[in-house]
């Protein structure tokens, strides 16, 4: 039992953080925004050069064969930087899904993407709007005869104007027989379910990173901005708002980290027990609440300044709004929590799902 990241795990995230600090600062984001481009190929290239797209891909498929605990801090860094490019989806969800598929087509596409950095996007029923679909080279599309991999020339993309000015959203559809089948209907359900678990966990990580970025922005502003002859951050009201936001973050982050640790390198290992699924849902709910509170708090701390376009506060606020409704949205995940607490054993020894298998000399009174 060790719930501390290794130096390697943290170092990898630090490298991403540093790259994003250089390549994804406020000025870069604003340039990108005015160009109405949510996909900066140069930045994408630099990110992938770090090997990020293969973190969760098994070694025999050409990846690093690492697990969710290795990727989660990277996803947090993406959220903290308000990264427009869908790196978290691509490396956290789509490539692992391809690795999870049997057959040559999926493997070839995976290999090609790992080599060239080609963006592949997934049209998942729980996340109807696809980020930067205009930059994707191929799409994984569910259909009546199973999961298909369709090249971008063969799909219809419809832009869906959304609130996040850094991300262009699309719906994507293809002809029923377009592209190549990569999973039969039976396998598809399991593949999409696993993708949803991964998507929820790493979106939760993005939200935690974003929440922390909001508090960081507000703390910096509150230390500088002066009213009534002193920094506004000297006011207890400001302090207590920010302390409350930080409390929310601190008790979301370990949940996200624990949920990420459930996502192993081997794709088939993504657990589907009611207890594991509840941990994932808990992560997304807690992170969403932390991000919403932190974004609202930083807006309030910034006052009128925060309400203006020229300050970055609104970028985070809008990203939070966008991310919290992905992967089924809060009500779906609350439902999964209710299922868990009303059907599976409860108690301190159920914190880590594998415990029950090993211990239990005197069983808990409650039975599932």
């Amino acid at each position, binding site marked *: 039992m060790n719930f501390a990241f290794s130096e390697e795990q943290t170092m990898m995230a630090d490298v991403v953080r540093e790259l994003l600090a250089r390549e994804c600062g406020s000025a870069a984001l604003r340039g990108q925004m005015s160009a109405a481009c949510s996909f900066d190929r140069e930045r994408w290239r630099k990110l992938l050069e770090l090997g990020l797209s293969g973190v969760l891909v098994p070694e025999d498929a050409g990846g690093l064969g690492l697990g969710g605990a290795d990727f989660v801090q990277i996803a947090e860094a993406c959220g903290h930087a308000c990264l427009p490019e869908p790196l978290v989806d691509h490396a956290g969800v789509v490539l692992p899904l391809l690795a999870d598929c049997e057959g040559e087509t999926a493997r070839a596409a995976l290999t090609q993407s790992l080599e060239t950095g080609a963006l592949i996007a997934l049209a998942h029923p729980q*996340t*109807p*709007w696809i980020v930067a679909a205009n930059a994707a080279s191929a799409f994984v599309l569910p259909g009546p005869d199973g999961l298909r991999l369709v090249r971008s020339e063969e799909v219809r993309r*419809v*832009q*869906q*104007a*959304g*609130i*996040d000015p850094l991300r262009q*959203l699309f*719906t994507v559809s293809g002809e029923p027989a377009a592209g190549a089948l990569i999973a039969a209907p039976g396998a598809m359900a399991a593949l999409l379910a696993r993708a949803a678990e991964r998507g929820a966990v790493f979106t939760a990580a993005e939200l935690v990173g974003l929440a922390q970025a909001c508090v960081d922005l507000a703390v910096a502003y509150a230390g500088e901005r*002066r*009213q*009534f002859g002193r920094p*506004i951050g000297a*006011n207890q*009201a*400001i302090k207590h708002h920010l302390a409350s936001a930080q409390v929310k973050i601190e008790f979301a982050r370990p949940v996200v980290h624990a949920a990420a640790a459930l996502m192993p390198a081997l794709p088939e290992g993504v657990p589907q027990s009611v207890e594991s699924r509840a941990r994932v849902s808990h992560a997304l709910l807690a992170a969403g609440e932390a991000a919403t509170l932190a974004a*609202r708090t930083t*807006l*309030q701390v910034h*006052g*009128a300044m*925060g*309400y*203006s*376009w*020229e300050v970055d*506060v*609104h970028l985070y*606020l*809008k990203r939070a*709004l*966008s991310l919290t*409704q*992905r992967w089924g*949205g*809060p*009500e779906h995940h*609350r439902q999964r929590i209710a299922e868990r607490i009303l059907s599976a054993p409860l108690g301190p020894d159920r914190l880590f799902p594998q415990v029950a298998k090993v211990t239990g000399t005197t069983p808990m009174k409650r039975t599932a």
Partner: protein
Amino acid sequence: MVDLRYTDEQQAFRAEVRDWMAANVPAEPLPSFDGGRAGFEAHRDWEARLNDGRWGMVTWPEAYGGRGLDLIRWLIFEEEYYAAGAPLRVNQNGIFLLGPTLMEYGSEEQKARFLPPMATGEEIWAQAWSEPQAGSDLAAVRARAVRDGDSYLLSGHKIWSSRAVMADWAFGLFRTDPASERHKGLSLILFPLDAQGVSRQAIAQINGEAGFAELFLDEVRVPIGNRVGADGEGWRICMATAGFERGLMLRSPARFQMTARRLVELYEANRETCTAAQRDAVAEAWMAAEAYALSIYATASRLIAGGSIGAEASLNKIFWSEMDIKMHETALAILGARAELLPTAPAAGDVGRWLDGYLFSLAGPIYAGTNEIQRNIIAERLLGLPRG
């Protein structure tokens, strides 16, 4: 004596408003007045049309285009106004804030000069309170008015001036006594926004619209007759104006009651996917809007009976601003994945203007004095807690 029944005359008045609105409210919503010149002018035209019907501000005296009615009739008017889906008031800084201020503190000349074109919408007003270093701390105003014969020369830097991008006139606080500090030595002065020496810089809001401007004033010459009230009396007058803003006028309950009604309709339209928690949130929203309306009716009755409104205005501001955000959050939760779509998105369906309304609602706890400032006011002036 509490009697919560409308009189026959009040009912007849309601019917009259309802008829006029049914015949006059534009069938299609006007484009936003902060979104560009066309929307701004369409709203100006609407102000003129309202004035033609003598509906511009029913509480104003008849001499200035009003009807001299009491606050209960004003509430009835507002109820019918919002129920009819009538446009937002582009001249709200004028008719709700400066208008009442001029009637209380202005000279006869000022009333005669400024109120009629305000009533008709010929002159649209912006406010110019804040400065970069004077936001919550409004008494830190640095913009100055230097006396030069029969004129003032206005110089300084104003910010967050709502409507100032396209408005005709503005009112603001200026330091008329250069040696003064804090809230002393300030005066309330009116100035035309097309005057020599005024330059305006639009500020885009988080919804992308330029609802604010920065104003750079460089020796803008205005006659001393543009000062409202006595020299140095600006702070006191401004506080009274802020009371109007936070209190009754700017946020009439009907607007929130209509939001609550739309929210119930949204819930009903999405009932199959809604949870019990969302139903409870919708019920909370409706209760909040009703509570706000009842409270304003009680305040209006008290004012009619000779009472006054002071720090209570801060209670209102906190309540409606928090309510407004919650209502919109509830709507976005019901919309689920569609919440983030703009109405123009093909998949948006019936998302309506909830997202826009949400962004707008987020300004509520900030403008006209942040809710933190309002809580200080309540604690110190209403409850009597010691100053910090």
